[in-house]
């Protein structure tokens, strides 16, 4: 095997770069583990014998209604209603991940479409869409979210809609910028001279070149969406109780000063939220380095040893 020259595909190269990034790898493992927990939430509930909403008034609470600390019955302790914090955390991961991923994908879809159309056509279309993005970005997000939820009542669908509505603009702007430069490139001119239509040029020529920013920014949007959802739930406007969500769990811990007594009600959901958002952000960074080596020049200058590796 040694000495043999092997042709590596671009995907393989990307994966090699990604896997050599230790922080990115740890983040990826954490996210995979979290996905496993979310999928296996039912199994966790079955093993512990505690469902996410079952209230244990006898073993989960003291006679005077205080939650019990982490122990053998409840690995992460119980909450103010005598429910298992660990099981709720696992089910909360489902909510956080699904909202995070679904909202980010939808936002990316809208952002890419708008950015592509605005950048490609330019002119008055760009003007209108650009101002639309400005408009959405200028709306005070939290205030608007709160009023929307207050009017329509809280639900999972509304949470996702609201999050999507306020997060597609960043993607839209980035894509528009990229398209502005891409559409002047020779291969686009070539396609056009061969008689390709607008739609065909946008989809078959430009879009594939946008892969890197789309993947990176979508990944980066996931933690923002998760935080959005947690914020809504914390303010009591996310998914309705007793369904568990991390933000809702934190809100219940903050309510009635119960966190002064039960530290585990803040620590575990807080840690879950922190590690998840951190992981997605680090992974996003790692993906950028892997997908677009040119963007990490500043890092290469600092570590010349890697220059050789990257150039090879």
């Amino acid at each position, binding site marked *: 095997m040694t000495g043999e020259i092997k042709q590596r595909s671009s995907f393989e190269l990307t994966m090699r770069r990604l896997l050599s990034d230790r922080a990115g790898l740890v983040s990826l493992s954490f996210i995979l583990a979290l996905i496993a927990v979310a999928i296996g939430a039912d199994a966790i509930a079955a093993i512990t014998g505690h469902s996410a*909403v*079952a*209230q244990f*008034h006898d073993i989960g*609470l003291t*006679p*005077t*209604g*205080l939650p019990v600390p982490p122990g053998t019955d409840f690995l992460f302790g119980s909450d*103010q*209603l005598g429910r298992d914090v660990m099981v709720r955390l696992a089910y909360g991961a489902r909510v956080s991940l699904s909202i995070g991923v679904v909202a980010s994908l939808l936002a990316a879809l809208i952002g890419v479409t708008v950015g592509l159309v605005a950048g490609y056509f330019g002119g008055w279309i760009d003007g209108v869409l650009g101002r639309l993005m400005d408009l959405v970005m200028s709306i005070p997000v939290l205030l608007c979210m709160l009023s929307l939820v*207050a009017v329509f*009542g*809280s639900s999972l669908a509304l949470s996702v809609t609201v999050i999507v509505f306020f997060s597609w603009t960043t993607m839209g702007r980035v894509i528009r910028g990229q398209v502005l430069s891409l559409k002047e490139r020779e291969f686009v001119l070539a396609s056009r001279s061969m008689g390709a239509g607008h739609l065909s040029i946008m989809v078959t020529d430009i879009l594939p070149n946008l892969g890197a920013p789309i993947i990176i920014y979508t990944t980066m949007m996931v933690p923002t969406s998760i935080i959005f959802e947690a914020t809504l739930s914390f303010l*009591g*406007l996310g998914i*309705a*109780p*007793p369904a568990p969500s991390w933000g809702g769990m934190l809100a*219940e811990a903050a*309510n*009635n*000063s*119960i966190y*002064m*007594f*039960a530290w585990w009600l803040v620590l575990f959901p807080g840690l879950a939220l922190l590690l998840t958002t951190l992981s997605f952000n680090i992974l996003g960074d790692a993906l950028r380095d892997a997908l677009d080596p040119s963007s990490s020049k500043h890092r290469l200058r600092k570590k010349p040893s890697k220059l050789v590796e990257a150039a090879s």
Partner: protein
Amino acid sequence: MEHRLSAALALGALTLALMSSVVVAQDAQTGGTLRVLGTAEVDRFDTVPPATADTGSFFRATTRQLINFAASTDPQEQIAPQADLADSVPVPTDDGKTYTFKLRQGANWDAPGGPRQIVAADVERGFMRLCNPSIPAPAVSYFEDLIVGFADFCAGFGGVEPTVEAMKAYIEQGDVAGIETPADDTVVFHLNYAANDFIYLLTLPVTTPAPVEVLDYLPDSPDYRDNYISNGPYTIASYVPDTKVTLERNPAWQAESDPLRKAYVDTIEVIAGVQPDAAMQQLQSGDGDMLYDINVPPVTVQMLTMQGDDKISTLAEGASRMIWINTVSENNDGALRNPLVRQALNYAVNKAAVVQQLGGREFATPLNGIFPLGILGHHDFAPYPTPDDQGDPERARALLAEAGYPDGLSLKMPFRNAGNGASEAQVLQASLEEAGFKIELVPTPPSDFYPRLITNFDNALNGVWDLVPSGWSPDWPGGAARSIFQPQYTYDGTHGTFNFSDYNNEEANAIAAKALATSDLAEAALLWNQVDEIVMANPPTVPLISQTTVLYHGAGVQNFLPYAAGGNGDWTNVWLKR
């Protein structure tokens, strides 16, 4: 510290045997600024419009009524009516239909022209203002039919333009036949029928006399507030909306004319906008002294108890919690109109778990009727008994099946998303679901829950809610069965604000009327028991718990005596020792 503790113990022991004032006199000190912390501001300065119960503490400091309560640690003394502006508590004559009051001399208005004696005409004027067309008082319904001629006076007032001039003219020319003022120091009330709680009714802030000057302003208008005329030991020094009210001594008030208020502190600051956590921390650090509208969180109570903090105390105000059942909507084809379904709800609820949430039996007890502990008419009965009050899901399921809903029922339950609301709602949901009900919880911001959602009858008709966890505190402590029964469980054709489903039961009404008329309190209690049983036989609500209020204060506060009508320690009887 040691010394203070023993003094407090001695105080507790001695109050049983001695007048508390004797002990108080030993080391009372005047002066200082009492800092009272609240989330919301004092909502009313005028006693006429409806105010929150917490405002009772404010009214205690700035207003006086004919009858009032002493601040005391003794539960019996807390609810014993005592003479305030009256010089004694009168015994009714004419078969309980006539009450004659002599006014205490030396009790003054802080009038613009200097101190002025409170006279009988001021008492009558106070009642007249209650049915003004500008901002009426719901509490007028207690008196309208009771006092001779008052209903006529109010009916006439309803047709008057709500302007200062028109209202002033109507009050100055009008007369309530049943409130006689034969002399400046004598007021005679004539009642249409005997009412054994009339003395209690006269403790309500709405019965505060009114000086002639207030007729020049709309009730509780900015003008009224700027020209506030106090008759209590304190008056308003400054007011910054949503931020702070500062009370200072009322120069017209004379200590010897007031047996109930000692007025030790010089200044009282009521500070708004403080969150419960912050308020508790300020009290513990000594930066704050007392709480205004903040309930001590159950967990904090237990932590303080564990730390051996002796500044925690409880007060039974007759507060209760219940679930209201919507019997007027067409949801589920009117299933909740079926008594069997409502009985099933009563069997299903785990009241013990609600009690546990609030910190155990010390702070709440399961309730099975409409009258909570501490109210004349409360008795221990269980029309829908369940083992240890933990609910009986099988029994509930059976009743539900018998009613024709073997697969259960889906019900919407909005809850007040603040304090203990979410926990309580989820505890209720868990026990109801075990019995086959499917409960959809709707978190509702506290600012919307009572004003927009529950008290708006259209929402009940349109089926916006099926069940609502709700609470009630009577307007006065002790003999307050009327203040629980009338506003919530009677309906005379006009929808009442707090009778969420237009509940009415003529049989119960008839017995309630007898209970109010009898002069024998033991008999009254038995009659109220009957009322309770009749109402619960076909229950409009699911009674949950009788609740005690937990009181807490800062270390600098001495002589902290609960004033039951304010639901907190009495500002006018504490002194400060920093």
